[in-house]
């Protein structure tokens, strides 16, 4: 009796001591959520779930590989508890739901005819299945059989439909699907995904630099789910109000309807739901992952910086935006004029971004108020350089520094500051009577349209190629034409003429003719000898292109010298998808990486940089997958002709009448009505990789 007592006493004490000492001595940091998740599992280590023991399953849950309901012993309550550990503020977390990524179903064309096979798994092993589409749903319902919650059924169109009320996000359907159609992804996983060659995505989504799931949000609009559409867009684009107004929508160029008919007015639909949210008066809740405790500095509060900060914050990192200007928005605030993007709208949008827990430090400039070294010293784990392209290129001709000569950015910024900032009210911008703007891009158009509204009598554009080659958005050019801007094409400025007081009085230019196409495919303008002409002017704005202003590189002492630049002064990053600079912890994106480009490109780059930063600070490989699409198109998805289209008119964008709009800075382009939005969304063919909804059967 005594021996037994002593033996067990000794055994218990030894084991207890050994374990408690070992847990101290061999302590390794581990995500505290793992222990928390494990405590809710049954700890039977039964391996019934397919993982090797409860801690392995807990690790998988925390890594997002296993669903919270992984434990086969524990009950639904435990699953809910685990979900609570993994989720965020339950009020804002979106539920983990199964999502069907293929809506091809019956409309997908068949390639083979099989008899007698009734499982997707089996079909998939035989030449990849029956459809022409290599990645589409096979429709035999392995997922339906796998679902123990009865949340899936094969719908009328031959693909699985999820009953969101019944789905618990267990992931059983995802596991059995041989084509990875069914997806259960955490929000973070969704945010990190880049378009890939094997994705089931429509041409518009392939083309969008921000990779927005366009068919999905159009479908949501069609079903009246405007909030759903907003959330879909916000998975890729936090600046939908701005984009909805200023985006030149490259997506519409690839719209399949556009091949036979007019393209769907995608951007108008985006603006419609974005305005719907703003007019509702409240920001829809945005889900944010639990805090990781990592700090990231975002330098520059423009579209790239805002996008990067937004996605980093949603991934759970602490983000601070350092911006040289008094208010957020960068070029879209200080470059794009009020009549295109009202500041009130922009402020509402940037407030929404800051609301998810991002810190904003205004009026601090890199190289003047701080440098990269000081950021590293304050414990930032990574830096995003989104400094944009704020330095105008110069003509390099005589007299361009005369009085009355401005560069595009300086003109627009000064004007914007005067218009919006109380402190800048006394610096009213100079406006001439006969104004000339040199350049054919959006900046040039913004300048002329601003000048018209400021009361300039005669405003013209001088461009060295023809209208066809102008890089500005077509709608902008048309609007400028309507507003009375004159255009002088095929004219290369050679000299700026001034008077004795040093003020500009004239512009001398050479007439040009078009020669052979150059590397960019545009026909190179060739000067006509002896064709010098002088134009009488009293104000000149040069807007011939911009590059990043990298003066901080000379100002800062140590770290910045390793930062490689290209010969256009953009920040050199080897991989345009990874966006990592020559200093590993510095990332970039937007205009500072590419030179002046679209807002939507900067937004896309911001997300790609956020992805790289997230992977970098969590110690993972940042090299993007080989299959990354990166605004290229998947060849099979690009058609020459589209069958079954019945022509239907594209919704026209409502505008203020010209006489009204040229007198003020009131927004010129208006939003479409709900009726029009529903009509336009119905024009969408709901394309996928190869199939689409035909108008006529």
């Amino acid at each position: 009796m005594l021996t037994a007592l002593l033996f067990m006493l000794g055994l218990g004490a030894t084991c207890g001591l050994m374990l408690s000492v070992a847990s101290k001595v061999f302590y390794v940091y581990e995500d505290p959520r793992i222990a928390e998740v494990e405590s809710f599992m049954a700890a039977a280590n039964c391996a019934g779930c397919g993982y090797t023991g409860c801690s392995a399953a807990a690790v998988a849950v925390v890594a997002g590989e296993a669903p919270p309901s992984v434990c086969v012993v524990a009950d639904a309550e435990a699953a809910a508890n685990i979900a609570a550990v993994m989720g965020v503020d339950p009020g804002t977390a979106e539920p983990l739901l199964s999502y069907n990524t293929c809506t091809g179903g019956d409309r997908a064309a068949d390639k083979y005819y099989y008899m007698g096979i009734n499982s997707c798994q089996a079909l998939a092993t035989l030449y990849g299945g029956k459809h022409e589409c290599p990645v589409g749903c096979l429709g035999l319902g392995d997922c339906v059989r796998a679902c123990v919650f009865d949340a899936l059924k094969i719908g009328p169109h031959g693909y699985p439909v999820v009953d969101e009320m019944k789905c618990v996000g267990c992931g059983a359907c995802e596991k059995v699907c041989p084509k990875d159609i069914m997806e259960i992804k955490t929000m973070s996983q969704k945010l990190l995904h880049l378009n890939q060659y094997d994705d089931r995505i429509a041409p518009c989504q392939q083309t969008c630099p921000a990779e927005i799931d366009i068919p999905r949000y159009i479908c949501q609009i069609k079903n009246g789910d405007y909030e759903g559409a907003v959330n879909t867009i916000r998975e890729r684009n936090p600046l939908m109000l701005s984009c909805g107004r200023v985006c030149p929508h490259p997506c519409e160029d690839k719209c399949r309807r556009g091949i036979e008919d007019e393209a769907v007015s995608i951007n108008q639909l985006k603006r419609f739901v974005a305005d719907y949210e703003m007019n509702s008066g409240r920001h829809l809740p945005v889900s944010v992952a639990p805090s990781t405790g990592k700090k990231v500095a975002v330098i520059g509060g423009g579209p790239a910086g805002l996008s990067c900060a937004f996605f980093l914050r949603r991934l759970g990192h602490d983000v601070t935006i350092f911006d040289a200007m008094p208010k957020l928005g960068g070029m879209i605030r200080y470059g794009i004029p009020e009549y295109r993007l009202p500041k009130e709208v922009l402020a509402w949008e940037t407030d929404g971004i800051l609301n998810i827990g991002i810190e904003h430090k205004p009026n601090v400039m890199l190289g003047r108020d701080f440098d990269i070294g000081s950021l590293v010293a304050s414990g930032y784990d990574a830096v995003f350089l989104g400094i944009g392209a704020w330095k105008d290129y110069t003509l390099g001709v005589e007299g361009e520094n005369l009085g009355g000569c401005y560069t595009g950015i300086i003109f627009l910024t000064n004007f914007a500051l005067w218009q919006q900032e109380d402190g800048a009210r006394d610096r009213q911008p100079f406006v001439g009577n006969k104004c000339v703007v040199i350049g054919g891009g959006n900046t040039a158009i913004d300048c002329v349209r601003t000048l018209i509204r400021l009361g300039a009598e005669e405003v013209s554009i001088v461009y060295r190629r023809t209208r066809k080659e102008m890089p500005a958005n077509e709608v902008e050019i048309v609007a400028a034409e309507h507003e009375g801007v004159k255009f002088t094409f095929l004219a290369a400025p050679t000299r700026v003429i001034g008077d004795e007081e040093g003020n500009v009085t004239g512009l001398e230019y050479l007439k040009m003719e078009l020669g052979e196409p150059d590397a960019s495919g545009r026909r190179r303008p060739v000067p006509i000898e002896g064709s010098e002409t002088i134009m009488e002017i009293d104000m000149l704005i040069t807007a011939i292109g911009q590059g990043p202003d990298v003066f901080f590189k000379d100002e800062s002492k140590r770290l910045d010298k390793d930062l490689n630049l290209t010969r256009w002064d953009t920040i050199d990053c080897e991989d345009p998808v990874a966006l990592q600079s020559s200093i590993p912890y510095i990332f970039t994106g937007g205009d500072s990486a590419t030179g002046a480009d679209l807002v939507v490109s900067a937004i896309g780059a911001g997300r790609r940089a956020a992805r790289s930063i997230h992977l970098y600070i969590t110690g993972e490989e940042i090299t993007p997958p080989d299959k990354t699409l990166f605004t290229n198109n998947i060849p099979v998805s690009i058609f020459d002709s589209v069958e079954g289209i019945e022509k239907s008119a594209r919704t026209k964008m409502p505008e203020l009448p010209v006489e009204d709009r040229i007198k003020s800075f009131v927004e010129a382009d208006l939003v479409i009505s709900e009726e029009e939005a529903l009509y336009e969304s119905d024009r969408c063919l709901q394309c996928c990789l190869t199939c689409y909804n035909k108008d006529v059967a």
Partner: protein
Amino acid sequence: MAKTITQEFTKGLWKEIPPFRLVLGLCPVLGVTTTMENGIGMGLATTFVLLCSNILVSSLRNIIPPKVRIACFIIIIATFVIVVELVMQAYAYRLFLKLGLFIPLIVVNCIVLGRAEAFASKNGLLPSMADGLGIGIGFTLSLASLGAIREVLGTGTFYGASVFGPSFQPFTFMIQAPGAFVCLGLMLCIMNLFEN
């Protein structure tokens, strides 16, 4: 969430009946169910351990430090297993001979540890007792029915009494290892059939 004690008890009888619904604790299920008697014996032994360990774990749940809780649960369970082992040796030796190796293995029966951890360590005494008893009886019923089928087919007897008379050629396959797997698999199939 507020389930009644009765619900906690009855869920073990059909909704979560092991090993059919909770595919756990298969080793004794397959190993000992050559006759109905063995099945019932094993089932009752497991029920006893399940009930006792649930009671003890539930009453000690606030004292046990979380980091060594598994070790503590194991001690508790192992103690009761040895109690069963000794008592069975002393008063039901014939059964002990047949169940032999599987009695000590109740310790590692996932069901017992699983219920202790997943249920008893988070619930009060009464629900834990109901849960232990319910799951235990469910387990016993499964074992008994599996044992009965295998016994009838494999040896031609039901609880020791001859069913088919002496001319019956026993379907020996059923009481051997492969038969156990096949029989359980088919029973699962039949359960699924009734479910849908």
